């Protein structure tokens, strides 16, 4: 007599229960392995990333500048979404290097020559939360460089924390999807975190227009800046 196994639509004979369990366990193992790497990583919602992508989606072959550490899955994401060219310039590593050598004061001059890219050659810039860890002088120099690199109607996405974190390490942002990011610890040493006021942020990127601004429950302010057309007309 054959008995049905629950969850199998009543068609599987009971004698086949071992193969049923075997395949299910194998499936569960795969799933648990996949989730193990990500289960302990906090997930943060994001509203500005979607806007950032939308702004670049209309361009045939956008050029991105990622100031964070290289994340393979992020590259894949941007490749699939935008089919773009991505420059990886890990400034977190640079800050760490200067921090280790006690030369944070030299960061400003370092940033002024850091980017070999031509003026207006980049359509999108991902700053993540880098500006939280820069001294005002270095932040101003970097902002000036980024404004130089950005093309007309190009967009810059930056995160600013509204509260200082006690964590001694950076966290890198992994794109889960357009609306969610995961945070993963990053080995680079972290400089002192500054909490920038809204007006300071706007002043920092004076030549850019605030396109979108979101204050999230996670104490992160996401701001999407856009380079206005009239700046391109001037040059």
């Amino acid at each position, binding site marked *: 007599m054959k008995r049905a196994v629950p969850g199998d639509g009543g068609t599987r004979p009971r004698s*086949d229960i*071992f193969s049923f369990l075997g395949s299910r366990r194998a499936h569960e193992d795969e799933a648990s392995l996949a989730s193990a790497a990500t289960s302990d990583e906090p997930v943060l919602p994001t509203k500005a990333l979607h806007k950032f992508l*939308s702004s670049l989606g209309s361009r045939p*072959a956008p050029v991105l500048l990622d100031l964070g550490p290289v*994340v393979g899955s992020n*590259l894949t994401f941007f490749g*699939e*979404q935008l089919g773009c*060219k991505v420059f*990886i310039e890990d400034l977190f590593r640079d800050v760490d290097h200067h921090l280790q050598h006690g030369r944070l004061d030299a960061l400003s001059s370092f940033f002024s020559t850091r980017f070999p890219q031509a003026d207006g050659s980049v359509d999108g810039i991902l700053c993540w939360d880098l500006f939280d860890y820069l001294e005002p002088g270095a932040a101003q120099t970097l902002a000036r460089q980024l404004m130089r690199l950005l093309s007309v109607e190009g967009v810059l996405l930056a995160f600013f924390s509204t509260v200082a974190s006690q964590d001694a390490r950076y966290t890198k942002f992994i794109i889960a999807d357009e609306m969610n990011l995961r945070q993963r610890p990053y080995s680079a040493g972290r400089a002192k975190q500054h909490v920038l006021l809204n007006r300071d942020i706007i002043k920092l990127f004076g030549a850019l227009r605030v396109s979108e601004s979101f204050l999230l429950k996670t104490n992160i302010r996401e701001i999407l800046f856009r380079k206005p057309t009239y700046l391109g007309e001037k040059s």
Partner: protein
Amino acid sequence: MWKRDEAVRPPSGRETTTPMPATPAVPSTPSGSIPPVARVTERDIVNIGKSVVIKGELNGSEDLTIEGHVEGKIELRENILTIGPNGKIKAQVFAKAVIVLGEVIGNVSATEKVDIRDNGSVEGDIVSPRVAIAEGAMFRGSVDMQRAVKPAQPKPVLPGESKVEAKSPVAAVSPASAGSPVQGPRV
């Protein structure tokens, strides 16, 4: 009860708990000849050993694994290039797919995929439709992922349409549509 268990066993009699071999097993054939798939695998992979240093241009039509040092230019347009953990490349690389476990300084161009594995390192610009970079890998440069032109999805043939119209791939990859961005999900 036990008889029922016997009946569950696969007809070949192979134990289900037998571990799978690390390499694909080659089934024995009556004549003893190697099946074509295995023959291809054995024939088409070439190694450049740890102690080998090459300066100049390297061309080929076989899959290649480099464990030594190469300076100059590597071209394997139709094949897979693997830079082994001991491999050190200071060259421009062109291949169908490039797998990096060692060190590469120079631009890498692949028609299919570039895969930088754990502890692999690339310093240069990558041009490839697909790029995978592992967590422990090092990369410095730019990544250019040209949008691959997807083959047209076969439309369901409506009663009024002819089959020729539905299958035509030309319209799907017309110059106007080929370069246009794929519209991702929008909120």
